[in-house]
């Protein structure tokens, strides 16, 4: 069996994490409607296979940085759903003690550093981590998750050029969900297929079905192995679709219903269950699904009763704490 083939246990775990993410998203959507969330929340319903499949192919020591739409990556990288939800609700028990919010979650102990809400920001971020890995001669990789919108930034070009030039151990995972805000990718990019750009940076470009967690896992596992062999970066374009709006405050109206329907028929959870059904017995799948439901229910219950933080000026670790004159 090739090393990039996830085991049945790994696939069951991916299925569970995708379902955890889906239920978190749905609950956030309901709570937004009820006026119980703050700020925009970017859901990734229908795209869970990208974040979860990709992070499942990484080790805990590998670094990952993601976008403003990072819930599947957080859960995929093994973060505690309760602390993710707590951060979203600004609680002291959240990963940033309520300072970060849903777009910027980080758990350094798991290499999740972190969500990044500046479009394109995750791309040089992972490239810099990979530079540090190379300087320190460490056995790990860095992965940037970014959107098709982010692929149009100048910093994307600078980063990929350096990564290709220096053969940095970095994986560029382009989550192509067809939209940047409300604008279709055909109105943003001169080329519809973005993996072709890899050729300009001296790295392989591959395209995968972004609704198939196993396909994403395999592409990332191959790219990881390549990076560890010192052969440099890979650009993976995972094709998927944003079935919900840009954020919870998006009024919609610019996406074609037939597109949404077509992609919903290929929902990553349906794809995953169909494949699992060929190998795992129904009771095992049901147990995993039940666990996911219970995990999310417990996460919300605990997080929502966790305390809100007390304000303190920039903590003692902060730059100005010991210097004369404050400021």
């Amino acid at each position: 069996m090739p090393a990039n083939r996830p085991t049945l246990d790994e696939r069951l775990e991916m299925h569970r994490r995708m379902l955890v993410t889906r239920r978190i998203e749905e609950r956030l959507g309901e709570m937004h409607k009820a006026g119980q969330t703050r700020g925009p929340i970017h859901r990734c319903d229908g795209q869970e296979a990208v974040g979860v499949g990709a992070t499942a192919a990484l080790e805990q020591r590998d670094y990952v940085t993601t976008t403003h739409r990072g819930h599947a990556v957080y859960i995929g990288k093994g973060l505690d759903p309760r602390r993710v939800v707590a951060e979203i609700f600004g609680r002291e028990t959240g990963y940033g003690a309520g300072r970060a919010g849903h777009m910027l979650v980080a758990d350094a102990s798991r290499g999740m550093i972190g969500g990044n809400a500046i479009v394109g920001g995750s791309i040089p971020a992972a490239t810099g981590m990979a530079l540090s890995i190379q300087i320190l001669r460490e056995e790990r990789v860095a992965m940037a998750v970014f959107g098709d919108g982010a692929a149009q930034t100048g910093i994307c070009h600078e980063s990929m050029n350096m990564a290709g030039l220096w053969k940095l151990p970095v994986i560029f995972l382009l989550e192509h969900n067809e939209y940047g805000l409300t604008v279709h990718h055909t109105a943003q990019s001169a080329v519809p297929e973005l993996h072709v750009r890899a050729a300009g940076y001296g790295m392989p470009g591959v395209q995968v079905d972004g609704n198939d967690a196993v396909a994403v896992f395999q592409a990332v596992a191959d790219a990881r192995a390549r990076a560890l062999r010192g052969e440099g970066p890979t650009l993976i374009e995972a094709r998927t679709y944003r079935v919900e709006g840009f954020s919870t405050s998006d009024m919609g109206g610019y996406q074609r219903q037939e597109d949404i329907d077509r992609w919903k028929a290929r929902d990553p959870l349906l794809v995953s269950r169909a494949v699992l059904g060929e190998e795992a017995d129904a009771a095992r799948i049901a147990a995993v699904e039940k666990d996911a439901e219970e995990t999310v229910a417990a996460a919300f219950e605990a997080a929502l009763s966790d305390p809100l933080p007390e304000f303190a000026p920039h903590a003692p670790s902060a730059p100005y704490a010991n210097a004369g004159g404050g400021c």
Partner: protein
Amino acid sequence: MAIMRYAEALNAALREEMERDPTVFVFGEDIATYGGVFKVTAGLAEAFGDRVRDTPISEQALTAMAVTAAMTGTKPVLEIMYADFMPLTLDALINQASIYNYIWDGQVTMPFVLRTQGGGGVGTGAQHAKSLDSLVAHIPGIKVVAPVTPADAKGLLLAAIRDPHPVVVLEHKLLYNTRGEVPDDQGPVEIGRARTVHEGSDVSIFATSRMVLEAEKAADALAGDGISAEVIDLRTLRPLDLGAITASVAKTNHAVVVNEDWGFCGYAAELSATIMDHAFDDLDAPVERVAALDMPIPYSQPLEEVVIPNADRIAAAARRALA
């Protein structure tokens, strides 16, 4: 005690830190093979291999990469060739470097140094002569130092590299060839401490970077008129040595602030407001500000000389304060 050029003192700091700490690495445009446009990194590539890297001309990505390299176990020292290119680094400074330690509740530190040089005086024109001190000193979470002497150049760069937080080191193109004594055992100079260049009793002149040298000249001219000026080199633009500032104003009751960045919304404005906030009762006259004129830095010598502050303008400001 050795006499060193400012550029050599910076080189010595980089060399010592790279020898002492294998996680320190240096990168930027032209810095490896060529040794840097101002020769600050000369010889380092030979000594330290791939820890000294020539980069593509990609300031935005380089700065963002330094941020995450710094979070993941290395201590990057990035050279941005001219301060005028700092606008390209600002997303990384404002939206990345300065926030992570705080928003992630101390999970990461950021031992990242950005070295750059600014200032006018040699006809480098409107895109290569600015001081953009206010732009970086504005950002909470970033420290900004501006050494004037070779000893401080070494000491403050050592301190910057060892600091767990991002530090911008503002050098000045007219200082690289200046010489001064650097103690053989010159260690880090504490960030956040001003240096009294010489004491005086009538007026305090608070200056930054090369303007300290102009302030010294102004003090000499004022001495000819029987005016005793105290010259203080702030050394650290942020955090500010408030104690040194208030103590000096308490003694002289008159203050002049001098900075080479633009005046409007500039660093000198912040300094004068700070003095008003903390030493108003000790002032016998309004704080006098000396800064670059609010316009692009022109190329031709007689034009550039008018725009950039100098000893004459500083002395005139001191006389106004005392009038």
